[in-house]
């Protein structure tokens, strides 16, 4: 299987080539159901823009909200 290399929150990760969109990536990371704020290559994404494609070497920042404290 070919892998795509992306940087998520400052850490380089390999993801399967079939992870093609931000949506896919969130599912792959197991956080698609969370309340999220996502930035793709330094641009913040509106919630309806998670179908944006991701490419090799993209930089993605994802912050999810949690309850505890």
């Amino acid at each position: 299987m070919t892998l795509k290399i992306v940087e998520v929150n400052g850490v380089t990760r390999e993801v399967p080539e079939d992870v093609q969109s931000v949506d896919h990536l969130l599912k792959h990371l197991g956080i698609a159901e969370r309340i999220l704020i996502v930035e793709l290559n330094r641009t913040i994404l509106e919630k309806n823009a998670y179908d944006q494609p991701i490419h090799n070497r993209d930089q993605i920042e994802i912050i999810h909200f949690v309850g505890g404290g």
Partner: protein
Amino acid sequence: MNEKYSRQELFAPIGKSGQEQIRRLKVLIMGAGALGSASAEMLVRAGVRKLTIVDRDMIEWSNLHRQQLYTEQDVIDRLPKAISAQNRLVAINSDVAVTGIVMDVSATNVEELIKGHDLVVDGTDNMEIRLLMNDATRKAGIPFFMGACVGSYGVTFPIGVKQNQPCLHCLIETLPSHMMTCDTAGVISPVVVTTAARQVAAVLKYKTGEVTPKLQSVDLWTEEHASIDVSSFKKVDCPSCSSMATYPFLQLGAATRTAVLCGRDTVQLTFPPTRQFELAEVAVAIEGKVTELKHNDYVTVCLFQDHRIVFFRDGRLLVHGTKDVTVARKLTAALLG
């Protein structure tokens, strides 16, 4: 004049004038759990003028690995967190007027509670109360330094520190039902301290310089970190922070006054405001029915049908050993007759 704050004054961005600003600060800390303990200790040491810390809960053995204000003796003495926190904080720095309040904060009492404070620091443990605090602080026009953590992950967001910045409600348009309950996963103390450190650094910066309202996260285990400028998410028609705000979370009233406590086998029942518990009288009334009965100035605790039950003066009780509200109600009815 002693040297208490000399190292903080030598830190150039604060200096003597910044320290004078800090000495005038009146802070409310919501929650005296892990984050609340950590930020309260830092702010009291920093020398704020007044610090109020509010919490509804008792200190448990499972708190001690991360809630830095408490000791084993506090668990044995059955102390509410707010009381033990006050005792410890006063001992740390007598310059600060510290008040601990044992109270369940809700839409009905939050506005009165925040009066007389310059800002609020988040030490709560669920998103529902954060949205309530977001509304209350937006209405009062004071900043709210949000912080949350679970596992090795923490997230912070200073709200109301700059004109036209988004509030928490702007970022979270709808709250999924699973976020209304709380995380039951574990947590490690380093991320508590890191998250609280970011909140308190923002408070000090707010008073002496300028805070950038960024949403930030850190994971101390995976070493991931993120910092996002969310200013474009400001909603012009936000129900919580726009000119047409209705503060929906302040309208929820006292309807839902029963709660299953976060990540625990515990149900909280709240009686109407007219009913307060005289703890000594409660102890006498239930004496024949229970074992391990104990009461102090703040709580009456007993064991009833294998459930530990805690009465607070403010008309609340905690029923341990169940997540079922009906079970808790039946036990209470059987006990109080």
